[in-house]
């Protein structure tokens, strides 16, 4: 077997992996990057928060994204099944933006097949050794349980051993690395089994925009629309002048979506049409034959770092994409990981104790999106209640501005949880009804985080 040696190996060349490679190279460390895919490749997740502009600058790709064919977004609309709408646009003058000392008022809606390539090419141009169609087969541990290398099947089907001091796993939701090291908690334990959701993303042309823009002279063409519903929520993300991503996240208990269908596209189309507003929006629209579906959404690693490894982006944590957290977490955790990795290389200390500083910071950071996701999933399941919430937001522009500030990462996500609880109390008070809640068990999820933080501080 061929044996190679690299100080740092990155598994995965997507957004997390390429960003990690760029940052390592900026620090004079040349990593090996392997990926099972041949780039460019498709992936779900199109929302890039304004806060990510900072990372784009640091990674040296800001201008290319800014001048590229990517839709800028700075507005959010929430739409109820009845057609009631609440709309907000980023405005740093508003109190919800807390002093407004921010630079970027816009984020992007991006086609990942193109967007991820910017990072991939940047890493390559800086000298990263990126090997596509290379699959991770196994990990090598020494007698102390420390990671000392990986086994890879290369693009010629040859098995190669790569000895290394540090593996940075950026291989996403279905990470082989995580499964080999048994890093994933059983879904049932972390999410009470009910986070086993699935997501479907479709592309449409020639949509009927009328239901979304009527009575709103300020409607911006880049507006992200969210459609909370029962047992699922839908998104509407414009990507180009005549190309929009529409998709949904649904509980896995919504089974057999293809039952009675020969045509998958028609099944997806009918699922989207279940929402009365979206039904009007896609009526007569052209659906492209480019659908991506994911299943069993949601996981959190028991460990995000250990002796000889760090897990970055989706490989460590993945949640319902309701809050467009995927790319933010990938970019943020990659930055954290490189800070720790560079120091580890300088000190030549790749021990679990040293690398675990990464995990500590990562988990603290996660509390923010997790709060929102939890609150969102817990409360937004009852159509009557969704109508109440959207009408409340529509009647109280400052509350809707807060939603925007939170979604675009300019306000703390705990404010979303607080708002949700206040609205929940108002609903019970006004209607005497208790919204039907799906026990999505984010309470256990949160407890899991707290337990981990406790156990870390105890050590």
């Amino acid at each position, binding site marked *: 077997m061929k044996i190679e040696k690299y100080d740092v190996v990155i598994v995965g060349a997507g957004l997390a992996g390429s960003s990690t490679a760029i940052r390592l190279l900026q620090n004079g460390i040349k990593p090996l990057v392997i990926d099972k895919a041949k780039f460019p490749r498709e992936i779900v997740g199109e929302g890039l928060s304004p806060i990510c502009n900072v990372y784009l600058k640091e990674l040296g790709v800001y201008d290319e994204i800014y001048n590229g064919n990517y839709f800028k977004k700075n507005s959010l609309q929430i739409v109820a099944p009845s057609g009631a709408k609440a709309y907000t646009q980023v405005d740093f003058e508003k109190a919800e933006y807390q002093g407004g000392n921010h630079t970027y008022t816009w984020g992007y809606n991006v086609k990942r097949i193109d967007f991820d390539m910017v990072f991939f090419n940047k890493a390559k141009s800086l000298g990263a050794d990126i090997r596509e169609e290379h699959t991770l087969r196994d990990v090598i541990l020494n007698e102390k349980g420390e990671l000392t290398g990986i086994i890879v099947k290369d693009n010629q089907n040859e098995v190669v051993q790569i000895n290394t001091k540090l593996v940075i796993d950026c291989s996403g939701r279905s990470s082989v690395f995580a499964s080999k090291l048994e890093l994933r908690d059983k879904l049932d334990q972390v999410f009470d089994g009910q986070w086993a959701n699935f997501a479907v993303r479709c592309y449409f042309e020639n949509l009927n925009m009328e239901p979304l823009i009527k009575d709103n002279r300020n409607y911006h063409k880049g507006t992200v629309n969210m459609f909370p519903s029962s047992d699922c929520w839908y998104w509407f993300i414009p990507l180009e002048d005549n190309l929009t991503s529409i998709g949904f996240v649904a509980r896995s208990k919504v089974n057999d979506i293809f039952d009675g269908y020969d045509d998958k596209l028609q099944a997806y189309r009918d699922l989207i049409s279940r929402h009365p507003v979206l039904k009007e929006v896609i009526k007569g629209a052209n659906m492209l034959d480019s659908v991506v579906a994911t299943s069993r959404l949601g996981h959190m690693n028991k460990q995000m770092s250990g002796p000889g490894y760090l897990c970055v982006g989706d490989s460590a944590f993945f949640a319902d994409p309701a809050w467009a957290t995927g790319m933010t977490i990938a970019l943020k955790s990659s930055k954290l990981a490189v800070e720790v990795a560079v120091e580890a290389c300088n000190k030549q200390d790749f021990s679990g104790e040293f690398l675990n500083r990464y995990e500590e910071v990562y988990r603290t950071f996660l509390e923010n999106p997790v709060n929102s996701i939890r*609150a969102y999933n817990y409360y937004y399941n009852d159509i009557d209640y969704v109508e109440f919430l959207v009408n409340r937001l529509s009647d109280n522009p400052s509350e809707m501005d807060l939603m925007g500030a939170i979604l675009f990462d300019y306000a703390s996500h705990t404010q979303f949880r*607080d708002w949700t*609880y206040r609205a*929940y*109390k108002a609903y019970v*008070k006004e209607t005497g009804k*208790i919204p039907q*809640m799906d026990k999505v068990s984010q309470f256990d999820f949160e407890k899991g985080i707290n337990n981990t933080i406790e156990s870390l501080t105890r050590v």
Partner: protein
Amino acid sequence: MNEQMFNEVVEILVQHVDTINKDSIKLDSDLKELGVDSLNNIKIVLSIESKFDVEFSEEDAANIQTVNDLIKLIISKQGALA
């Protein structure tokens, strides 16, 4: 301990929890064991809020385990207002 507040809290609990036995409610009683669940919980919170003119966050509500916790929370919230 504030006996009047205890009695008022007991009244609210009795009002919203059908299965509750009024005489069994003690200061250290566990609310879950008394029959407080995720459904009647919100009605109790609302009644407490209007009775004592306080506002609970979700986190506050989630951290209440015993009758005593509830009373302590009301007092601390009232103190915050004063």
